[in-house]
């Protein structure tokens, strides 16, 4: 696939990284040399210093042969213009980042008339993700796969009874669940039976939802469902706006604290029933006056990661049961786990995940990224003739970084062991380290194999790249 990415910011970088792993040719366009340098030093792709909105630039890049163009510059209007131009020039699919709520009501028009295939709105997606978590009312953070049949939950070892210091094989697990990964000090570890758990660890567990609940009850994790009735949002930017609107629509009473007066005015006009308070979110007295300790949820959506992280600590201190912070920089993710925040939401990861899901279409059903993209959990429908079909897993010799967490066969969930066999059409929940993403292709999608096929493919690749 030939992919053009316009804009080498945080999202552009993440997308470039995700796309260049597979058999794709990726070109990234930006006007800033420094940003391009950063990308080309870490990712195998072509960087072009140019303004992507110029027709001549798009033509020179061979946009008419491109399979996908993603425009993620800082301006919505530029993104729309680039996408529409690219589409008219013959690009197969175009994706634009459009984040301004003002355009929110005309998305259908943008999609149909401007012919933009997919619109990525990081703030809206962030708000959706937070709403989902808050309204589901689960005590633990879970991610759904296979239409909710399989979930993956993460537990902090020090919040569970008697788990620390044990080896995995010593754990008593009554119902089948699988511990696929351990995150320790910001690093993903693929555990085996002798891995000893420490109190700093977070474990990722895959299984059927009831079994996960049993697991969590057995180890003394909170299971009671508590509905969120009162929420406080710090930061009334775009994400705050979207979130407030969604929560209000579901009957939650919302309090927003926003610094900018103009912005407060806008929020009041656009949102019904929200209490908007103008003030500095870092002003502790103000938050106390607004009864932070009464809140069921505190959501930190200011523009600064640092502020969000510090304020979330404050929230925990005043006993708010659910604290969610928006953290955009992946560098902070390793520290976050040690801070005791319930959920750190990274808009970049969520948006990139959404785009990947859209692009992969049939092949991958859902993707979620963990720990700043160090690992991905994918839902794949096993195709006919691929390497994984019909062989016991122990014979398959999957790389260490790829784990099949669950197999769903006609609605029946199996937590696989070495003897499990995958049939065509099974839904697989696959855990995969970032470094092994490229091997996924080999095991799950490619049908033929061998040197000849490899050579043939490489010549095809050459011709394809020569046509750029």
């Amino acid at each position, binding site marked *: 696939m030939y992919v053009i990415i316009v804009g080498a910011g945080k999202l552009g970088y993440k997308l470039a990284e995700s796309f260049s792993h597979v058999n794709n040719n990726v070109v990234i366009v930006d006007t800033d040399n420094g940003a391009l340098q950063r990308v080309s030093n870490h990712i195998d792709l072509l960087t072009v210093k140019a303004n992507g909105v110029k027709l001549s630039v798009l033509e020179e890049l061979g946009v008419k042969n491109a399979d996908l163009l993603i425009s993620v510059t800082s301006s919505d209007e530029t993104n729309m213009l680039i996408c529409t131009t690219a589409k008219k020039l013959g690009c197969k699919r175009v994706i634009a980042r459009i984040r301004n709520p003002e355009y929110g009501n005309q998305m259908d028009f943008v999609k149909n008339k401007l012919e933009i295939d997919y619109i990525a709105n990081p703030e809206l997606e962030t708000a959706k993700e937070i709403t989902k978590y808050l309204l589901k009312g689960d005590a633990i953070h879970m991610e759904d796969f296979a239409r909710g049949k399989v979930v993956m939950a993460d537990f902090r070892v020090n919040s569970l009874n008697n788990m620390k210091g044990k080896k995995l094989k010593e754990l008593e697990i009554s119902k089948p669940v699988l511990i696929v990964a351990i995150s320790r000090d910001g690093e993903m570890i693929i555990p085996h039976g002798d891995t000893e758990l420490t109190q700093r660890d977070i474990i990722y567990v895959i299984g059927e939802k009831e079994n996960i609940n049993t697991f969590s009850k057995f180890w003394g994790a909170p299971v009671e469902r508590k509905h969120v009735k009162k929420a406080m949002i710090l930061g009334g930017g775009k994400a705050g706006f979207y979130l407030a609107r969604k929560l209000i629509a579901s009957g939650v009473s919302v309090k927003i604290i926003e610094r900018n007066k103009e912005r407060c005015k806008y929020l009041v006009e656009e949102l019904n029933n929200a209490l908007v308070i103008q003030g500095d979110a870092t002003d502790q007295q103000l938050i106390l006056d607004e009864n932070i300790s009464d809140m069921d949820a505190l959501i930190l959506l200011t523009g600064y990661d640092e502020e969000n992280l510090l304020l979330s600590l404050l929230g925990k201190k005043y006993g708010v049961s659910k604290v969610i912070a928006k953290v955009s920089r992946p560098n902070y993710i390793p520290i976050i786990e040690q801070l005791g925040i319930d959920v750190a939401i990274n808009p970049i990861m969520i948006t990139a995940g959404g785009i990947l899901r859209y692009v992969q279409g049939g092949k991958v059903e859902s993707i979620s990224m963990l720990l700043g993209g160090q690992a991905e959990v994918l839902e794949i429908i096993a195709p006919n003739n691929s390497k994984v079909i019909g062989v016991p897993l122990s014979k398959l010799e999957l790389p260490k970084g790829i784990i099949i967490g669950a197999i769903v066969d006609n609605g029946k969930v199996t937590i696989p062991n070495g003897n499990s066999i995958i049939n065509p059409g099974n839904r697989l929940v696959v855990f995969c380290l970032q470094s092994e993403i490229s091997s996924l292709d080999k095991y799950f999608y490619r049908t033929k194999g061998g040197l000849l096929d490899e050579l043939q493919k490489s010549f095809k*690749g050459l011709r394809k790249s020569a046509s750029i």
Partner: protein
Amino acid sequence: MNYRRVLKVLGSLLLFEALTLIPPLAISIYHNQHDRQAFLYTIAIILAFSIPMSLLPQKSNRIKAKEALSIVTLGWLLVAFFGSLPFVFSGSIPSVIDAFFETVSGLTTTGATIIEDIEVLPRGILFWRSFTHWIGGMGILVLTLAILPTIGVGGFQIFKAESPGPISDKLVPKMKDTAKILYSAYLGITVIQTVMLYFGGLSLYEALVHTFGTVGTGGFSTRNASIGAFNYSSYIIMVISFFMIASGVNFSLYYEMYKGRWRNVLKNSEFRAYMSIIFISVLLITVNLNGLYSSVFETFKHSLFQVASIITTTGYTTADFDQWNSFSKAILFTLMFVGGCAGSTGGSIKVIRLVILFKLVKREIKKILHPNAYVPIQINKKMVSNDVVASITSFFFLYLVIFAVGTLLISLEGVGFITASSAVAATLGNIGPGFEMVGPTMTYSHFSIPSKLLLSLMMLFGRLELFTIFVMLMPNFWINE
């Protein structure tokens, strides 16, 4: 540093070298000459080292700048060492140091030789000697990149460290495909020249050997008189001149031609400067040498050939230019510091660097008149960033420093100043012949062992563009920070 990864890539690289020893082996078997054992032993030794190395289990396959630099420098040293074994085993060059010098000279496409009488050597050995030019010309690691399964991101670092020129850019998104395109162009030029020389009356064997020497801008021949042995045929001399010039052009321009973007080729500032330098030098030398040869065409032919040979750093000769007027010799000596274009197989400083340096000087002059003028440095209508300009000025400075220090050290031999300085200029610039005692009719065999090692180092410095090796010589490269 990820030593396992470095060892593994080096293992694959050596496996590759074993493969490249098969054509010379085939030739010596075909001619039933005694050197076939030498190749067989070498292949066996290489396999004994490389197979365990390439089978090393890997923890991670990340290649960072440090690993890439180690791979390139160590890779070149190892390939040169193992590549010198056939010379030693066959008895063609009994001394290990001499054989190493000859192989480094081959791989770095220098073409400086220590062999007094080439014509007595077996054919397989001579083929291997020239084949090293072809392998080293485009870069043996780039070749490995093109064929090895995904090295990925680290590949670009290796490419940057090995390919000549201040700015190495990929042509297409994937490093692997870029390497393939470059090698396709390289292979294409090789085939065309071989066919043309073959039709000029050379045997297929000699056509191939001289093509390797030309497209790799190396300079090894099968004749003691170099290309001078073919002076009877103006056709052969013109063909070789043409292909020397063609090999000094940035190979990405051939990709542009293939894509039909001729404008990009003709408007390319480096290409234009390169062609202008050749044109003016040929013109000046032809005028200066008027009357030395039988006709004006003969004079033109020899000056074109010598200019093309020196500027592209090939080192083939049709005439003993050491006997020329000093004005003509001065021009050739100056050309030794010009070299081919970036991204070509030529060595030395490279035209693009000089173009940028000239623009820098122009800017300084303009700034004296208009102190507040904003004068960006542009190449092909694109801004050259200050980082690149800084790296070019420091490269230029370092080049001159190494040249000066090298000349000082070689002077300890007691040879003349012209010999010492031109020997260093010719090895550092990967050219081959210099003046006086290292002139076109002479060899490097009379130097002492330390000098030969120093000159080998000069050749590697020149081929890998100074910094790649310099970084590795720094002690803190080896300290894990």
